[in-house]
């Protein structure tokens, strides 16, 4: 399999590998994929509550080089974006940037899913803390 130089670069020098505290109300965590499919991505965003801007993003990925590169690139793009801007990131943008071949498009889809899941988790936490007095959405996200 021939990988593009950008994929190789992200694989060899992955950006933002690591974890943020998932209990932090300003951190949203997305965990997508499944081990039996050969891809699992964990992507986290830390949002500044006053500005709504993503201050930090981290990932950990079990998957092929293209999956690692897709999530690494996603964290790079997320930093400095507002939550709404982040939701506008499309998997096709990742495909183009990394020159992913057709058989690796699912890696970019998973990265987009991970972004959406992380932001959904963040929003859920915000709703929960805002609505705490009203006692709605009181379920912990476990």
């Amino acid at each position: 399999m021939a990988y593009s130089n950008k994929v190789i670069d992200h694989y060899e020098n992955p950006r933002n590998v690591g974890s943020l505290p998932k209990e932090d109300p300003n951190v949203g965590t997305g965990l997508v994929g499944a081990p039996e499919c050969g891809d699992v991505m964990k992507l986290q965003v830390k949002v500044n509550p006053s500005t709504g801007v993503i201050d930090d993003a981290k990932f950990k990925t079990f998957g092929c080089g293209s999956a690692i590169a897709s999530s690494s690139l996603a964290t790079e793009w997320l930093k400095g974006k507002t939550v709404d801007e982040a939701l506008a990131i499309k998997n096709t943008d990742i495909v183009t940037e990394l020159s992913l071949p057709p058989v690796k498009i699912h890696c970019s889809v998973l990265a987009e899913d991970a972004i959406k899941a992380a932001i959904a988790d963040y929003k859920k936490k915000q709703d929960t803390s805002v609505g705490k007095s009203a006692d709605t959405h009181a379920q912990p996200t476990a």
Partner: protein
Amino acid sequence: MAVKLPIYMDYHATTPTDPRVVEAMLPYFTQHFGNAASRNHPFGWEAEEAVDKARKQVADLIGANAKEIVFTSGATESDNLAIKGVAEMYREKGNHIITCVTEHKAVIDTCKRLEKDGYRVTYLPVQKDGRISLDGLRAAITDKTILISIMTANNEIGVIQPIAEIGTIAKEKGILFHTDAVQAVGKVPFNVNDLKVDMASISAHKMYGPKGVGALYVRRRNPRVLLAPQIDGGGHERGMRSGTLNVAGIVGFGKAAELCRLEMAADTARLSALRDRLNARLHKGLDEIYINGSVEHRLPHNLNISFAYVEGESLLMGINDVAVSSGSACTSASLEPSYVLKALGAGDDLAHSSIRFGLGRWSTEEEVDYVADKLTSVVTRLREMSPLYELAKEGVDLSTMQWQTEGQH
């Protein structure tokens, strides 16, 4: 001394042709170029003589008679000829074939084709160690069973099936027994009479011979196996396989077989020591790595290991100066990992994390050490970025987790 890169450690895929084999072949391209079927001039006689010598060399390696060797283009053709040839020839006797889920595609897909033509095929499962159950085999036999086809050694996990026991059962029941012996012949002792094999597929390029030439051993006595030819033409190879013989290739095959016969004991001792060294060094540097398949019943030069929490393709990317294979195939929409590893029941995640190492005649201790050390560092790095490793270290049982597979499947 620095190790020379890239390192070839994929000897199950193919082997380099031994220079002594190439030397033996060369005169048959230019000098002795005759057609072995030309009966009326010395060019043909020379070629035929060379083929006869090679036939004897191949037969000697497996304890057969030279007349029982049918040369083919390779083991895929041999598998096709054996299975389709028996199915067609013995159709009146029955329509049931027994094989196994971990067979090579050349056997599985041939059986699938026959199923479309009205044959019934039983695909025996394998146990955790990769071997079939003999009780399971006995239970699968019916009065319509005409053929049992079980490989000698598996191409991914190197596990050796109980061939002599299967041969005994087949003989008791009067059923023909074919074995795809590609990975075993030339590497471990293989005798068609001791093993009670009726047909065996062999390939030259897996045993330091050239590509494009193989053989099917077809028993001539007790019982005499009859095959319906699958390629029609000039009636070469006792009518079982038409087509002008690849004389240079066959000469190389013969030489390769002779070298394997003479050097097998020494090669086996050296390679199993190297394999054990590789295994020990990996286990020293890494936790949670698992050997796939039986350690006891295994080719001496094979190691197949799952590196938990790390995906195989990303692992290969990290060791791109080493030629090995992964059981993970993250290249299709289905993301199916190796069907052989899945059949062992180890779990798809471990199947995705596997690497097959195949050592061979030119593997060295330096290469083994380099590969083990490089893998140790790459696995360690990839685990640091693996969410599965993190979860496992937090004490989460991955097998009970609910995975979100949004958008997929």
